């Protein structure tokens, strides 16, 4: 019987494995390899140049700017979208009026393509007659503000769009988790005279840890992945103030056609992603309380 299992096991697995290797593991490996080669130009093929790409990377101030931006972007989007998601789920799960509409409102951004909503947000941010400025001048008489055209505020503006996009998606996970918590726990807490906050902190949070872990890892991955709106809203500007790593990789690879350097940048992103996600996993693992 065992031999048959082997054969069947491998047989069933092979189709998926082929594609996985072809489009995940092989490219990842090749990227690392390719980062040690120069970019082929016209008829000249790629040649081995060792760590030169990495030296260029360290000397590239745009890279450092982009990395810093991504760091702030991650710091801005991850905690806020996870927290908002939990808040939304708690609200929507309760007995307030208008939860159905609210749920629709919170989740709708998820189904809209980011590239599409970027246009809408760009209008909001337009100085003078954009919605935000209309609010500011109409209600408060404030002067026009150029959020996207100012390097100090542009990253914040971009972060807001990302949070708006993903919080609703995470809300669904929390909602599912909340709905599967046995009501008996709540009743027990009531009987014991525990306050809502106590319940939240001591009972809900620990129980929701697996979801929080799952959602946070997703948020980390998203903080590298969500760059579509930059194409429309700022094109990385002004002066790379809103450029993120994946966007920079796209520019280097498909605008400047420097494939060697692009591979190097991708390696950096892979390393960062691995560290962050695995690190998160271990951090949470201690706190996770599985049912």
């Amino acid at each position, binding site marked *: 019987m065992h031999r048959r299992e082997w054969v069947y096991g491998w047989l069933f697995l092979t189709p998926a494995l082929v594609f996985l290797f072809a489009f995940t593991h092989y490219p990842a490996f090749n990227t690392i390899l390719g980062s040690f080669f120069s970019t082929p130009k016209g008829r000249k093929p790629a040649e081995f140049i060792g760590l030169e790409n990495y030296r260029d990377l360290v000397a590239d101030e745009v890279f450092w700017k982009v990395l810093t931006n991504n760091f702030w972007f991650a710091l801005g989007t991850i905690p806020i979208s996870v927290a908002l998601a939990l808040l939304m789920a708690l609200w929507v799960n309760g007995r307030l009026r208008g939860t159905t509409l609210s749920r629709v409102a919170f989740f709708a951004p998820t189904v809209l393509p980011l590239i599409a909503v970027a246009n809408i947000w760009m209008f909001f941010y337009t100085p*003078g007659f954009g919605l935000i400025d209309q609010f500011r001048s109409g209600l408060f008489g404030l002067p026009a503000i150029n959020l996207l055209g100012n390097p100090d505020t542009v990253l914040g503006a971009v972060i807001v769009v990302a949070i708006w996009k993903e919080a609703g998606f995470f809300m669904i996970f929390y909602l599912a988790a909340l709905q599967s918590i046995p009501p008996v726990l709540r009743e027990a807490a009531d009987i014991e005279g525990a306050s809502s906050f106590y319940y939240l902190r001591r009972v809900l949070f620990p129980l929701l840890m697996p979801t929080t872990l799952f959602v946070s890892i997703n948020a980390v991955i998203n903080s590298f992945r969500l760059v579509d709106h930059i194409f429309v809203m700022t*094109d990385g500007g*002004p002066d790379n103030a809103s450029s993120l790593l994946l966007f920079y990789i796209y520019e280097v690879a*498909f605008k*400047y056609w420097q494939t060697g350097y692009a591979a190097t940048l991708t390696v950096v992103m892979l390393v960062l992603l691995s560290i962050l996600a695995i690190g998160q996993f271990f951090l949470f693992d201690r706190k996770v309380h599985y049912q």
Partner: protein
Amino acid sequence: MTCFGKRYAMAAAAATVFTIGTASSALAVELEFYFPVAVGGAAADTIEELTEQYMAENPDVEIDAVYAGSYQETVTKALTAARGGKPPQLSVILSVDMFTLIDEDVIMPFDDLVETDEDQAWLESFYPAFMENSQTGGKTYGIPFQRSTPVLYWNKDAFAEAGLDPETPPATWEEMIEMGKKLVVKDDQGNVQRWGVRIPSSGFPYWLFQGLTTQNDVILANSDGNETSFDDPKVIESLQYLVDLSQKHEIMAPGIIEWGATPKAFFEGQTAMMWTSTGNLTNVRDNAPFDFGVGMLPANVRRGAPTGGGNFFIFNDADDEQKAAAFDFVQWITEPEQSATWTIATGYVAPRPDTWETTTMQAYTSDFPAALVARDQLEHAVAELSTHENQRVTTLFNDALAAAITGTKSPAEALAEAQQKADAILEDYR
């Protein structure tokens, strides 16, 4: 017990979807032609009409005109396609990407397709200003098609309100500042409701900036495309003038100004003057709720403007029949009648003098003299900034301009750095 039946059906269904997926993307076309959708819906429709017309007159040729996005996206697409082994046969691409296309070895010179004296005469029939970005090494690689220069639009009603002569735009840098100051309107709280002038700086600030540098009598790059002069004192001066418009004279909004929102801002009365492409002419004519004027950009040492827009390029990787057909199509579409149709629909400048002589154009321009401004400005126009590795060099120049405009760096500092970086890139090409 049928454990298998349905499974096979599913597999068959999946296979069908797979096949549809591959098959439908291999529709047969004779010529594939990428072009940038640059001026809203009208341009795309006109291109389609023109291609249909050509195909009607030439039934053995099939042309698939493909929307490829902005200028940036079009060149990316064309190169991606070329590298992927399926390039288009011809494409309208930003004229300044010529060096990149040559370096990547994807285009061929038109001279190789010239056979008759007529062909040669046609090749030489374009405005020299437009040919500057189309030729190198003694050969012609691009044929001008949707070319433009930036022009100054002004709101005549606003001028009248401010006590200025509505028929006279500013002719010099100083006048622009003076008039701008009179045109600024503030509300009771001191917030600006209307700015004097609007020079957009998002996306590709270098283009309009080149207007300023040309007016200050300095050229940004040499014709071989391997040397730039970003840190020339006259360039620094021009950038300082631009920065001062918002920071010192307060006649322009601070920070980066969005290109796409500029016409709207003009229509909404948020600015009394705007610098933008003549390609916007039809848009402004159709939508401005007030009387407006179009004039040449103001002079400093001299009048000046960059040229802009796209050329036709024919790709290497096509068979001789396709190349001949493409060549014929390009010749046809640049003929006076077709060129006139295109110009009138969009506002781009007809690139050949004889187009302007046609009755259609004469009628149009007598009805709408604003269309002549860009053409007349050609006398003062220079080549658009173009170098090897154009995208990289232009981007770092744009970044420097953005840094100065937002006040992060001083003009001198930003431009010095830009020059350094450009040198590092262009060294290899000298």
